[in-house]
C-alpha cells in the first residue's frame, strides 16, 4: 500500500513581519519618551519603597535642598508663577521692575534672597550654573521661604489640597536644614508634605513585601 508521504516543511519562518513590529514599537517608545530636562540644580534624591508617582508638573511647589544645604524653590507650573510673584510683592511691600517680572516667569527656580532678586533674575542660565547661588534664606523664623510658601498658598486661595508641597532633598544634606524648612512650612500651618524619592522594591521577607505579594497596595 502506498503511504501518503508527509510533505517536509521548511522550519525557517519569515521574520520580516516580526522585525517590522519590533522596530515600530522601538521607535514609538523612543519618540514618546520624555527627555529629562537638564537640571539647573543637581540633586541626588534618596531611595524609598514609596510607590506613589510624583506629580511635578501641575500645582507643585517644590522646595529643593542642595548638598551644601542651600534652599531653592522650583515652581514648575508656569501658570501660577505670576500669581505667586504678585502675592510675594504684596507680602514684602516692594515691587520688582517689569523686566524682572518677565524674567521671573521664565526662570525655573528661585535661588536668592528677595532683596537680591533683580541681580539673580538678570543672570543667564550659563551664569547661574557657574555662580555659587545664595539660595532662599531660611532661619529660625522661616526667612524668605516662609513668605514664599505663604505667597504660594495665597495663589491657591489657601487651599492645601490643591497645592502639592514637595520637598526634594539631597542625600548628603544635613538634618537641621530639613528641620528649618519644615519649620517654615509649620509657620504657615502646613503640616503635610511629600518627600521626593527614587523608587525601590520592598526588601524580601519583610512585612511590606508580604503585603506586596498578597496584592495589598500602599495607602496613597
Amino acid at each position, binding site marked *: 500500500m502506498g503511504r501518503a508521504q508527509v510533505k517536509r516543511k521548511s522550519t525557517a519562518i519569515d521574520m520580516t513581519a516580526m522585525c517590522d513590529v519590533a522596530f515600530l514599537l522601538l521607535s514609538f517608545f523612543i519618540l514618546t519618551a520624555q527627555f529629562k530636562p537638564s537640571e539647573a540644580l543637581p540633586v541626588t534624591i534618596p531611595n524609598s519603597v514609596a510607590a506613589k508617582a510624583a506629580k511635578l508638573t501641575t500645582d507643585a511647589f517644590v522646595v529643593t535642598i542642595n548638598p551644601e544645604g542651600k534652599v531653592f524653590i522650583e515652581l514648575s507650573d508656569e501658570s501660577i508663577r505670576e500669581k505667586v510673584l504678585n502675592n510675594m510683592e504684596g507680602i514684602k511691600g516692594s515691587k520688582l521692575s517689569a523686566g524682572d517680572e518677565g524674567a521671573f516667569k521664565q526662570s525655573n527656580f528661585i535661588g536668592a534672597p528677595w532683596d537680591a532678586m533683580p541681580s539673580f533674575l538678570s543672570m543667564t542660565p550659563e551664569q547661574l550654573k557657574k555662580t555659587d547661588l545664595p539660595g532662599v534664606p531660611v532661619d529660625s523664623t522661616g526667612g524668605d521661604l516662609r513668605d514664599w510658601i505663604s505667597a504660594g498658598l495665597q495663589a491657591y486661595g489657601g487651599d492645601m489640597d490643591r497645592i502639592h508641597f514637595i520637598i526634594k532633598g539631597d542625600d*548628603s544634606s544635613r538634618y537641621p536644614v530639613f528641620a528649618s524648612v519644615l519649620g517654615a512650612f509649620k509657620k504657615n500651618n502646613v503640616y*503635610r508634605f511629600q*518627600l521626593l524619592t527614587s523608587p525601590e522594591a520592598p526588601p524580601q521577607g*519583610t512585612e511590606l513585601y508580604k503585603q506586596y505579594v498578597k496584592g495589598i497596595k500602599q495607602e496613597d
Partner: protein
Amino acid sequence: MAELDTSSGGGHKKGPGVKKAKKLSTRVDLTPMVDLGFLLITFFIFTTTLSQPTTMKLFMPKDDVKDEDLTKIKESGALNIIMGKSNGVYYYEGMDPSQLKASSYKQIRDEIIKKKASTPADDLFITIKPDKESSYKNLVAILDEMTINDIKRYAIDPANDVEFALVQRTEQANGIH
C-alpha cells in the same frame, strides 16, 4: 513581496557551453535583527520607568499642642532610634539613653522587627531622633523602615542634648569623624 525577475527573457539566448549564473535568493534572515529590536525595546522600557520619581508622604504634628493632647507612650513599648554622622545609627529601648547601642542601617530592621514581635501592637512607639550631624538620606531611610515593617506609631523628634552627647562619645570611641 516583490521579487526581481532575474531570468533573462527575450534577450539573446546563451550558447550551450555558457554557464548560467547561479540565481541568488533575495531573502535575508531577519532573526538577529528582530533579536536586536526587542533587546533595545526592553532596554528602553527598563531605563525609562526607573527614572520616574515617587513621593513619600510625611505628616508632621503642630508644635503648639496642649499637654493633655500629647501622645502618651509606654516605657516598655518605646524604641528610640538616633541617627548620627557618617551613616551611624544607634538605638535604645525605654527611657534610659545610657542603654544606647550602636547599629547599622542593615541591622536596624532586625531590631525593629524584634521589638515589634515582643511588644503588644498598641504599645509600640518608635521615636526617630536625627541628631545635628545626620543626613537627610538617613532620615528617609528610617522613615522607609517604618513603612517596610508596617509600624503604625512613630514620630520624629530631634535628639536632645543628653542623647547627642552620648552619640558623640560613642562616635569618638569608635573613631568616627
